[in-house]
């Protein structure tokens, strides 16, 4: 498949790069060191249109295509993996399901605030006993008059610390097979009975807030159900199909940042009287890294382009994520190797990138889950 980016896609790349280098790069190391969620970036990213790229203009979004959105995640992640996932989880996991499964009233009520970043969104699916096996979730929603009463707990929710609008999945019918009894709800942070726990301390993407959510008799009106009763699992899986491309783009960007840092270091560092770039062992790593990046980029862009053209993209998205997650781990570890001892200390960015890359093999479906998804499509 030949790939020619449009003018708008090319300009999205240069505009986001300019923004990311001016506004995000200067705080990337600090928020990692201090495990600090960069709240000051939210209005800035909102003003730039980065928090509503795939949301139509009608709902105050930018109305960009999906491929431009992937390029934006890639460029932001190139300087900071935390900001990459902040945009991704907000857009792909919280705004997207409202756009695709919401009623017109729900879209008008929630999307403008999300698309502009006036309110951030989060996606609550995972539970202590339901990770890869998400259909096994235990949180319940019981009908009471015109309301649903929600009880249960979620864990590892990206953006929990700062999000206002949560898309949450709960079991509404215990009497049908597990994945058929789940429904999705839009829940406001300030709803009585809804509490948000402490941030997890993490290996990487340390500035992204990851928290548990606790629901104790949380009353949600029926008008806040997203999709039909029992459609929740479908909402979640469809959302994650697109999210996978987003995480693949995050991985790609982190790897790209590490590759550029390694190339520059190799050009400047002199050992045995010559720059590292003169050593074949280093050249070989650089060649492998650039090949990995080129392959990953094609997989991500292909999945996004299929989505833009309204074609089937779930399997290409799973392939992109399955390739790019491990690819980012590979490339960032090679970037450390090229930096030698300096690669292992915090003064250089590659150890942060190495830690940030690792999560892309786990969240929004582990490598193993992507393989299950791909194999199932081959064998059906």
């Amino acid at each position: 498949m030949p790939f020619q980016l449009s003018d708008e896609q090319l300009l999205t790349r240069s505009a986001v790069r300019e923004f990311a280098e001016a506004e995000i790069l200067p705080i990337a190391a600090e928020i990692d060191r201090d495990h600090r969620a960069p709240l000051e970036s939210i209005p800035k990213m909102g003003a730039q249109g980065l928090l509503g790229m795939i949301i139509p203009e009608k709902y105050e979004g930018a109305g960009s295509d999906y491929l431009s959105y992937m390029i934006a995640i890639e460029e932001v992640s190139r300087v900071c993996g935390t900001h990459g996932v902040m945009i991704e989880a907000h857009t792909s996991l919280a705004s997207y399901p409202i756009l695709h499964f919401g009623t017109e009233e729900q879209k008008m009520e929630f999307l403008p605030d999300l698309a502009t970043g006036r309110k951030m969104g989060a996606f609550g699916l995972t539970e202590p006993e339901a990770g890869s096996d998400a259909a096994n979730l235990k949180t319940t929603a019981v009908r009471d008059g015109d309301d649903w009463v929600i009880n249960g707990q979620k864990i590892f929710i990206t953006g929990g610390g700062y999000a206002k609008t949560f898309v949450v999945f709960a079991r509404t019918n215990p009497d049908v097979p597990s994945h058929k009894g789940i429904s999705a709800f839009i829940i406001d942070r300030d709803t009585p009975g809804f509490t948000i726990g402490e941030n997890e301390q993490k290996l990487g993407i340390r500035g992204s807030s990851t928290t548990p959510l606790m629901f104790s008799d949380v009353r949600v009106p029926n008008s806040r159900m997203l999709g039909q009763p029992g459609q929740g699992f479908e909402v979640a899986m469809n959302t994650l199909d697109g999210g996978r491309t987003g995480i693949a783009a995050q991985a790609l960007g982190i790897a790209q940042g590490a590759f550029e840092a390694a190339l520059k270091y190799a050009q400047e560092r002199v050992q045995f009287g010559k720059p590292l770039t003169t050593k074949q062992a280093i050249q070989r790593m650089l060649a492998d890294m650039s090949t990995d990046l080129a392959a990953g980029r094609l997989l991500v862009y292909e999945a996004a382009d299929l989505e833009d053209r309204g074609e089937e993209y779930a399997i290409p998205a799973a392939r992109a994520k399955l390739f790019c997650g491990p690819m980012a781990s590979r490339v960032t570890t090679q970037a450390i190797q090229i930096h030698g001892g300096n690669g292992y200390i915090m003064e250089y960015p590659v150890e942060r990138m190495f830690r940030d890359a690792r999560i892309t093999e786990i969240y929004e479906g582990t490598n193993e889950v992507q393989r299950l998804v791909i194999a199932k499509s081959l064998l059906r």
Partner: protein
Amino acid sequence: MKIVVAYAWAPDPQEASVGADGQVDFSRAKPVVSEYDAVAIEVGRQLATATSSALVGISVGGPATGTPVATKAALSRGLDEVMVASDAALADAGTTRTAQGLAAMVQRLGDVSVVLTGDSSVDSGSRMMPPVLAGLLGWPVLSDVQKVSVTADGVTVERLLREGVQQVSVTGPVVLALASDATQPKAPGMKDVLAAGKKPVTKLEVADLGPAVAEGTVVSTAKLTGPARKGIVINTADPAAAAAELVGALRAAGVIGSTGGQA
């Protein structure tokens, strides 16, 4: 009333490489709206918004200048419309020919109160364009402009000079060359990128720019050379001795005074 910004679609200095001989190689640098001209567009945007004027970009250059990606890149920075002349014959046009083309555009647009330019062209750094353009238009020109405000019959500008801040008021139309740090250009937003393709682009032919006058173009042929380096190396094994040696060398060079310091 229109406010005009002259801009160049020029190689990105961030992507240029410096060879062992000190020569800057732009051959592999992708073109962008030159970074100093982005400053002019940003200042122009603020001025145009404050005065409800139209903000028009003008550019004369080689074929790349007129490509859709180039005009959209300029428009995404906040221009309302652009007028470009792009032709192989204009690719390496000297300052005079380029300024002549820009002047022809300003005259064609009409009702122009201010022409803004960047500090200098990033690629050659000659800083000749604004005065030549102003000369052709018969307008005054001010360089090193930090701030601009529009008055009832002209503009008031602040210039940051070595001697201090100078305030100058000009009546009638004027060419203003902005200081490179007059403002920090803002990256285009996602909506700006998408809106760019919907804004008007006027393309002029070489013939529309008028016949080329005899070129009085200055071409710089010599390599840029700074003051010769002395190549003094101070051994830092003993910091105290190294500091004393550095102070001695600076005094000998007349950089710091030889008396009054505390030894």
